[in-house]
């Protein structure tokens, strides 16, 4: 049964040229890719574009997949790198600054409570420096351990843990500031 084949087996088969394996692998992970793209960019449209770019690049990239890493670790790294490339492109073209980094935006007048919650999230994400944003976006994935996030980001596990506590501290400070107002 294909559904029970592990990611790594599918990826190895895909690297060898098995089209079915590649298709089911991508189908299996498409939504996960999209969600991570969204958390990295903060915009649905950018997440869609980024996901599309990744889908277009994966047929070639997967040929280089090596059994050294867990497939998802490898995949998340592809996504994080793609997001970084996209961001760099956007800034080098001095287009509208992208996603979470975009501070110019006005809130819509008809904002509802739901929009307020979203607004808080947006401010929280924006207040974090890039490396913390990335780390947070990754660790919000279900079942993502600090060790795996560290492997994706190419840093040590201790660094991830340290970043997470930094994030907690910043969120707490942000909330405190709101309460004080």
């Amino acid at each position: 049964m294909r559904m029970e084949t592990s990611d790594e087996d599918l990826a190895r088969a895909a690297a060898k040229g098995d089209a079915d394996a590649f298709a089911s692998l991508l189908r299996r992970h498409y939504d996960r890719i999209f969600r991570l793209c969204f958390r990295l960019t903060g915009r649905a449209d950018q997440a869609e574009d980024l996901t599309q770019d990744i889908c277009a690049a994966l047929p070639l990239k997967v040929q280089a997949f090596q059994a050294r890493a867990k497939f998802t670790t490898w995949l998340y790294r592809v996504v994080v790198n793609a997001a970084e490339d996209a961001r760099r492109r956007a800034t080098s073209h001095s287009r509208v600054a992208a996603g979470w980094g975009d501070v110019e935006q006005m809130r819509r007048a008809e904002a509802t409570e739901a929009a307020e919650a979203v607004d808080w999230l947006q401010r929280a994400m924006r207040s974090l420096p890039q490396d913390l944003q990335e780390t947070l976006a990754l660790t919000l994935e279900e079942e993502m351990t600090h060790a795996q996030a560290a492997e994706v980001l190419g840093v040590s596990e201790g660094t991830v843990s340290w970043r997470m506590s930094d994030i907690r501290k910043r969120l707490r400070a942000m909330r405190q500031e709101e309460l004080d107002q």
Partner: protein
Amino acid sequence: MTDDLDHLKSLMDAATPAPDSARRANNLDRARKSFARAQGSRVGARPTVKRGPVARLTEGAIFMLNSLTSRGVLTATTALGAIALVLIVPQMQTGPLRVTDQIESRVVEPAPIPQPLPQAEEKFADAIAAAPQALSKRAEGANSEPTVRLGWDNVAEVARIAPAAPDVVVASTPNTEAFANADSNPLKVTAEDPVSTFSIDVDTASYAIVRSSLLNGQMPPKDAVRVEEMVNYFPYAYPAPDGEAPFRPTITVSPTPWNAGTQLVHIGIQGALPQIAERPPLNLVFLIDSSGSMQDANKLPLLKQSFRLLLSELGPEDQVSIVTYAGNTGQVLEPTRATERSKILAALDKLEAGGGTAGQAGLQQAYQVAGEIASDGEVTRVVLATDGDFNVGLSDPEALKDFIARKRDSGTYLSVLGFGRGNLDDATMQALAQNGNGQAAYIDTLGEARKVLVDQLTGALFPIANDVKIQVEFNPAQIAEYRLIGYETRALRRQDFDNDAIDAGDIGAGHSVTAIYEVTPVGSDAIRNGPLRYGASQVVADTDEEIGYFKLRYKQPGSDRSQLIENPIRFDQGVLTDDVAFSHAIAGYAQALRGGEYLGNWSYPQAIDMATAARGDDPFGYRAEAIMLMRLAQSLAD
């Protein structure tokens, strides 16, 4: 105070939109094709594989082990792929000039930052430059960028346009879903069994369950597909009743798309839509499952958001109360005017998941609250929101059903909203809603919440007719065989039709309900059952032109006595409108999902063509979404 990080996580989960299903299908398709092309470019470098998938997998593993050392070789093959693809690019320059700029900007893009990890040597930008698929989309979207809106502002919109979210079903979690269904209705021989009786069904849960499976990349379990619920998911504009009648049936007889030898008898029932301004005050008691299993992002947090949507639709006369059931049952919000938003929302925010589930105790308290606030001329309804966990309270399912049925007779109805997957007890949900005269809906996204709670608020919450039963008698002189498509779980005995004590489904304001029979005329070569050697040759009354007789019984809300509507059915009756054709397409598609026993060679491609041709106005985009899902089903089924 919860951890700020958890708070952020739940906000993030709630804010994360669903990937656009059209683009998803498109991207998957393009990636598959581009994968095939990438293989073509290195065909000389690898042995052709012609064995089965299992053998290929092991072979792949061995190949990988052997080739781990030769990174240079891999780079080389990748480069070959890249060159082959770049050559394709010039063919695409028929698009707007702007596209050329973008292609250049991407190809020329320097990627100066050294990648820290050996596996990421390949620059992402290079890979994109090598893949024309990414660029062709830019061609389409070139004129619309840049959008000067924050992603977050779009979130609500995204949810509305593509009302579908991926489920976060972790594969390793044991799946304890239970679905209510029965074998497809068998083909009946008219001479032996001319009468078909069933209760109408306005539930739509099946459609949303099927959608969430498909978007998850899996075919839905066959039993999760209830054809009539798939068909009834969509609003249809059948001719509206005039005068006093709460609804009007329209019968259309037309050739069957999937079988040249049979006809479809389509029965469309349109409920009247009273003015919303004149609707009676609503008393809603929300009974919310706050057990530990509800803490997932697609459960309690989604419920809270759905609730906010609903709140904005309620008026100053309406009252809301909230009761939770978890380890302990409690009234979280006393009956409160819907205008006191902040009070209601504060109570909602205090809801937290945790503890075991005891459905029954909570249910009793909810009905008690409902009884206290109910008064004449008002509509009172308990809305149960759960992921289907009743494992503590439902020691005796029959007793619980009886309890709900008794309350129904005293005027309080029950609707059930299902959340989340993996633990969903669809069968219990169905049973409770049916006994409570309510609707069972499955909420997988904010978009679905909007459809159920806002767009169709009037229908879901204001019944205009109770115990609606349909009975069709076919004329054996005209019809050799027939079968009812769907409604397997709603069959009634023949004598139940005229028995007003027997409960059946209800129609809400503005609802439409569709039932479809496939009939085989006498003399058709599509007849499957041969004649009986000892069959009685029946003398049929002189009603030759009639192929059947349609009867419908319903009760006005609050009344004990049923009223009867009857109509003869004839060949070529009615007009094949887009609405009718679309419902046929959905019925065919739903049968295909169930295995397509009666469909012959007809399958998803035909359903897609038909649905596309009959899409009509589609103001909410439900039909467009359905067509997307059909495409997804087609690619998954391949």
